[in-house]
Every structure is written in structure tokens, then in C-alpha cells.
């Protein structure tokens, strides 16, 4: 340990102060236990804090042998000062759906990553993978060998692959969940292993699953296919519990507003008047909902979780096409299939996925996300010609305001070829 080299980090030391957990302290604690690369990482970060510029370079490594994703290549541009992080590649490891772990797993993973790499991780990356940050090229294959043989685990997706699917905790903990989010995520991940590890598409593709319209994994903002739980029947009402909220025995919104005095709970003001469709009312002591008018926004259920529950005839609303702003501007997913039952083996869903992927693989340009292709070729074309579904008013926020649809020849009686001669018989030139 004698040759450990610590760098001066006066700027980073400022980030040890304050109540929020300090990553600097964590890295330094690990460095002090005899790990040079943690000193070097801090040293290089301090240099970035001085220069206000990054000191990393990209590498073209994609994966282990035969995989087109799962590894991100990184090289320091100051390898002489920080030799232990000269190569510092990342591996993405596919997390268990909804990210429950146990101590046996965590400890063994630590043993492995201390041996093969830096011992630095992200729990988790923004797509959901466990991220192991920092190892050299020669350790990539052995790390994968260890993961697959000693953990039965695998790398996650990167590049123009299916990215690691992710989901909210669903039925494991949340009474709102209309879907087995983890089961869906696990099944899709296993079904599409080839697409996850080997590039198949013009660009990246993401599935994300939320159990209800609260959308805690941000499926509508981040996924090419957003699977969001919903119900077809009626909100279940426990009228006694409604009275308990009105009477103040139960705390509104499960106590989520407890540190401020908002006054006594007022069901009219806080629930009925805020319902976006105004489909609720009090009939004497009974709360009534006109469920046909309800858009399942979750507000009333969020406010009174002990009194109201989603219905029991559950399934998913499928939306398509979210993407980050580069290049055509950010898009949120748009409603495609209002309701689909999601039950093992999810055949109806997988049939839809095939239609969508075949089209995108055929028609998508290089680096064109599904959402951009839908825009380029038209939402109606996608829904009707590709997916074979009926157009319905739910597909638009409002009908278009220009009268310029492109009519197809077969839609017009007689087609487009007509006799000029006959026309001129009726109209002088």
C-alpha cells in the first residue's frame, strides 16, 4: 500500500459538507482502504473542476464477444497523471425487474467487482441497468464470464439494440397497480434477448411499464413503447372510508401533505372540483362517479387511497414514440392502443411488437427513432396500414385544423384517371 498516491482535492472537499450523502466521501473512503483508482478518479475530477472541462475520451468498444451492446469505452486524456484510470470502461448489467436485491447478491457482486474493476458503480443508470464503472479492456471478458457463470446474470442493452426494459414496483408494493409490471418486464426481456444483445434496429428501442397512470417510471416520456396500466370497469368505492376522509379520521393523500396546514379536508374542493372531467358528485352521503366520463387520471384515488381503488377489469394502454430531443425535438408517447389485456404469454402484445418492429426495421432511416418515423410517415398510416387498427377519436387530442388530408386514389369513386374529352364536352375550353 506504500505506493498509493493521493491527489490534492480542495474543490471536491467542499462537496463533503452539507447533509446530502457525499459521493466524494464515499470515493475517498474506498480510496483510503487501498484503492488507487478512486484517488485517481477524484484527482481527475478535481482537474475537471479546475479546468471546467471533461477529461474523458470515448472509445468504440461495444460489448463482449458477439454482443453489440453492454459496454461503454472510456479513456482518460490525462493518463500520465492518473494511470490507474487510463482505461476505465463501463459495463451495464441487467437489473432484476423493479430493483429488489438481497445481501447475498450484493456482497458477491462486490467481491467480483473489487477483483475485476474499480469497485465503483451506479445504482442505477438512467435506463435501469446496474452500471459497473471502471475497468480495463482485458477485464471485460472475464467480468462477463464471472457474471454469467457465477451469477447467472447478463449484460444490459446499449447502442442500436433493445435497451434493458424497466418498470415500477407494481403489485409488489403498490395497491394502484393494474398490471404485473415486473412479470411483463421479465417476460419481454427474456423473449427479446437477441434484440437486446445484438443490434437489430435503426437506433435504440425502449419498453417501459408503469402499473397505473401515475407513471412512476416515466414510461410516457422515455419509452418507444410505453405500457401503462388502466381499467375498463368502475372505480371501487368504499363509502365508509369516504366518510372517514370527510370526517378527518383518515389523512388525505395518505399523509403526503402532513407538514403544512392546509385546513380541514374539503372533499368538494380537493377532489370533486379538481376532477378534470367533473364526473364525481356527492349524493347525500354517497360519493358517486360517472365512470363512463372518467379519464382515469388517478387524482381522486391518490387523495383517498383507502376509499377508492382502480377497477378489477385491468389491462394496459399502449403508447408509442417517446424520445429525447435530438434530433426532431422531444416527443412524448402518443396513444395507440387504448386497452389491451396483459396476461401471460402476452401473445397479443408480442404480435403487435412484431408488426411495429418489422415496419421500423424496413422503413426507419439510420438513427431514426420509432417516434420520428411515425411523424415522418404519419400516425394514421401507422395505426391503420401497419397495425391494422381502426382510427378512433382517442388517437388525437383534437382533429386536425387544416383540410389537407392526402386522399388516396382508391378512396375516390372512379379513381384519378378520367377522360378529358368528356370533361371538355361539358365545358368549353
Amino acid at each position, binding site marked *: 500500500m506504500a505506493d498509493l498516491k493521493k491527489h490534492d482535492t480542495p474543490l*471536491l472537499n467542499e462537496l463533503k*459538507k*452539507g447533509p*446530502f*450523502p*457525499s459521493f466524494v466521501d*464515499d*470515493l475517498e473512503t*474506498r480510496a483510503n*482502504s487501498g484503492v488507487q483508482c478512486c484517488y485517481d*478518479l477524484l484527482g481527475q*475530477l478535481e482537474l475537471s*473542476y479546475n479546468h471546467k472541462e471533461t477529461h*474523458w*475520451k*470515448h472509445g468504440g468498444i461495444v460489448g463482449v464477444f458477439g454482443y453489440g451492446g453492454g459496454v461503454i469505452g472510456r479513456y482518460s486524456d490525462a493518463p500520465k497523471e492518473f494511470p490507474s484510470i487510463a482505461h*476505465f470502461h463501463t459495463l451495464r448489467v441487467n437489473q432484476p*425487474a423493479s*430493483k*429488489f436485491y*438481497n445481501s447475498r*447478491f*450484493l*456482497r458477491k457482486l*462486490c467481491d*467480483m467487482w473489487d477483483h475485476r474493476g474499480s469497485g465503483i458503480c451506479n*445504482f442505477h443508470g438512467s435506463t435501469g441497468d446496474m452500471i459497473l*464503472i*471502471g475497468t480495463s479492456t482485458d477485464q471485460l*471478458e472475464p467480468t462477463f464470464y*464471472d457474471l*454469467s457463470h*457465477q*451469477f*447467472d*446474470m*447478463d449484460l444490459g442493452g446499449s447502442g442500436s439494440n433493445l435497451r434493458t426494459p424497466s418498470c415500477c414496483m407494481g*403489485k*409488489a*408494493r*403498490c395497491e394502484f*397497480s393494474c398490471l*404485473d409490471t415486473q412479470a411483463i418486464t*421479465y417476460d419481454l426481456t427474456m423473449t427479446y434477448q437477441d434484440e437486446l444483445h445484438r443490434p437489430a434496429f435503426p437506433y435504440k428501442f425502449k419498453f417501459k411499464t408503469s402499473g397505473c*397512470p401515475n*407513471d412512476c417510471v*416515466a414510461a*410516457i*416520456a422515455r419509452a418507444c413503447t410505453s405500457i401503462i396500466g388502466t381499467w375498463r370497469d368502475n372505480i371501487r368505492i368504499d363509502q365508509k372510508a369516504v366518510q372517514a376522509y370527510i370526517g378527518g379520521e383518515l389523512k388525505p*393523500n*395518505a*399523509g*403526503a401533505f*402532513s407538514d403544512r396546514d392546509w385546513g380541514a379536508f374539503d372533499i368538494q374542493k380537493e377532489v370533486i372540483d379538481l376532477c*378534470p372531467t367533473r364526473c364525481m358528485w356527492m349524493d347525500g352521503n354517497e360519493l358517486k362517479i360517472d365512470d363512463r366520463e372518467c379519464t382515469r*387520471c*388517478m*387524482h381522486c384515488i391518490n387523495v383517498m387511497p383507502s376509499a377508492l381503488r382502480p377497477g378489477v377489469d385491468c389491462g394496459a394502454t399502449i403508447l408509442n414514440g417517446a424520445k429525447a430531443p*435530438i434530433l426532431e425535438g422531444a416527443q*412524448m408517447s402518443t396513444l395507440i392502443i387504448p386497452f389491451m389485456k396483459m396476461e401471460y404469454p402476452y401473445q397479443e402484445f408480442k404480435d403487435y411488437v412484431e408488426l411495429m418492429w418489422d415496419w421500423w426495421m424496413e422503413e426507419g432511416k439510420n438513427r431514426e427513432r420509432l417516434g420520428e418515423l411515425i411523424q415522418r410517415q404519419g400516425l394514421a398510416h401507422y395505426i391503420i396500414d401497419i397495425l391494422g387498427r381502426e382510427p378512433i377519436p382517442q388517437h388525437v387530442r383534437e382533429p386536425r385544423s387544416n383540410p389537407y388530408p392526402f386522399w388516396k386514389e382508391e378512396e375516390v369513386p372512379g379513381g384519378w384517371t378520367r377522360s378529358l374529352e368528356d370533361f371538355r364536352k361539358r365545358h368549353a375550353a
Partner: protein
Amino acid sequence: MIDTSMYKDDPGYNIQELLDKPYDPELADREYNPDKPMAGRLTDQGPPHFEQFFPEVIKKNYGKWLTHEFLQSGVIKYTSETGDVMWVVRCATPRLVTTNLLREIADIADKFCEGCCRWTTRNSLEWHVTDEGTLKELIEFLNNLKHPGGSYKFPIGGTGAGITNIVHTQGWIHCHTPATDASGMVKSVMDDMFEYWNSHKLPAKLRISMACCLNMCGAVHCSDIALLGIHRKPPFVEDDRITGVCEVPLAIAACPTAAIKPATVELADGKKVKSVRVKNERCMFCGNCYTMCPAMPLADEEGDGVAILAGGKISNRITRPSFSKLIVPYIPNELPRFDSVCKIVRQIVEAYEKGANKYERLGDWATRVGWERFFEQCNLPFTDKSIDDYRLAYDTYHTTTQFKWSSHTDKMM
């Protein structure tokens, strides 16, 4: 209970026995032969099945939960239709964690939670317990755990009408295109916002997200407050190095706006080389060229900094999901503690806390009072950069005579 029988032949169906075997650091060195990579290779294993990591109480009550209640910020009580009760304690983590910290997490899991724990989508850590005594001990234990510099290792909070953990990206810790640092900014902002982390005093949830360049690996575009690293200078072109280290056609193809054109240029020594030129006015500062070509670095001390967007959300509650809007176009990188970013975030949060109705998300408040009032109440200048000139710009134009009088119009009168 979940039916998992259809997956029992999957490699990851039950890995617990495998986990009980100690890690063998020599296995790969013994068995893996780089000349025959396919020998003994296992591929397409997929992730482990999730159910094996659930605490017993969750296995038993899967899909049977009836209701939940926040007892205080960060402590949730769940009740099941089976009569079972479970408490969950939520703590912040900085996302970037070492195995030292992970081992400590494993120890806490063993001590209080049957060895189990869970991470949330927003990088918080959750503990599950089934009796009130253990809950009290766990809370006390966590409250006393600190780093050497004094910060909490696992501060409790992040639920309800407060600010939960910031989702963020790599920054200068590990990426080649960041315009700012992620971990340091998140630490600074969360230190300053800590009073909202562990309380329920805001009008609704407030989500902050952080991404360190336009690529937005952190997908911040739908957050109540988004902190986004931005570059403002086009890349360098190192003519004397470019042919040595990269392929010109690849660099050209990498650019999303087709700003890079091939060019033959003369070096100082008179030698002619094939290089490229950047049409600066077309560059959107995305860094894709640097990814493909190490001779086109982008980072710049003076050019780089932070933009702040606000008023987006994801949940479908009451109003539809919406994008965050550009509020402050540029703040220089002030190190180490990003003072202006923290100050502006505080101005926005305090104005929102004061002005919004109960249940109203930040963007819904701004829409109700009008964006002219939003800028006024946050005491932030409105700049030309907030007027869209990118694609779909028209969506944000103001096609009505309905507007409010504000300090902006007062000045004109």
C-alpha cells in the same frame, strides 16, 4: 403469490444457491480462453427473476395491498387485505456508489430487513420491515450513520409533497461530452433543498432532474425542474491530427444537423491534408462528432454551463403530462458548489411554494397564473432564448389577446 412456474427453466429463475458459493476470482482465468471465446460461453441468460429477491411479506402479499400511508417524510406504512402490515423507509443515495457503501447496505439489510432492499427509479434506497420495533431501531440507526465529512449516508425522506431524489447522468465522472458535472451539482442542489427532501410542505410533488449534455441520458425533459448542461461553442478541428486518429466520413456522418463538411486544408508546414470544416451556425453542440472523432473536442471552460427548464411533469394526474420549458438559458459553471444554480432553483421552489394551490404541480401553477407572472414571481428575467426557434416552435406562440399585465408590459407603457 405470483405464479412463476413458467419460468422455472430460465437460467436466472433461482440463483440463490449460486450466490451462496463464494466468489471464485480465478474461475475465469482458468476457464476462459481468449483464442476460443465461444468455448464454455454462456450468453442470453437475461436478468435474474425478480421474485427471489422479494422479502417474504411481499411474496405473500403480492397484488393484495389495500392502502398506504406516509407516517412522516420517507416512512410509508402498507396494509394488505391479508391483514399484514409492512413499513418502508426511503433514503437518498447519490447513485454513484462504491462497493464499500454497497457492503454497508448489505449489512443493514441483514441486520433489519431479512437481507432485502430495493432501489427506486430515482436512485433512492428502500428498506422493508414488518414490525414497529424494528422500524424504530432502523430509523434511529440510519439517522446516526454519517460520512467522515458529516453528511448523512442514508438520509430518510423523499415521499409525498416534497422534493425527491434527483435523477442524473455521469458528468465529468465518466462521460466525454458533458458540459458540466452531474454528481457535484446534484449534491449542491440537494444540500440546499434538503428541507424539502425530508418534509411534506410543498403544494405537490416536485421532481428535479439533471442531465449533463443535450443527449439527455437522464431524460429531464418532463421534470418540474430540469438542470441541463449545455455547450455553446462548436467543436475544434485538429487538422494535423485528424487523419491519424479518425475517419473523416464517419465524423461527417455523425453530425445530426449535417454541419460538418469535408475540406482539404494546408497545414503550417505546407502539407495538404483531408480534414473537415464545421458550419458553425448549424452546430447544435451535441458532441456526436467528438464521439466518432477524438480530434474534434467540444468542451470549453467559457462556453459550457447550465440551463434551467421548469414546469414539466410525467404523471397523468389531473392534467396531461408536459414538457419542461426553458426558463434560464445559461448559467456559467461555478465550482465547486454551483451557487447560482442553487440560488435560482430556490427562487423557483419558494415562489411555487408560496403561490400554488394544494395538489397543483409547478407547471400547472405557472399555466394558471400565466408564464408572465411566473417569471415575475420567481424574480427571473425573461430572455429571447425562451422564444422557440427550433422545430415545432409555433406550438408555443401566443395566439390570443388574453394575457396579463406584468412587470414586462409595465416597462413598455
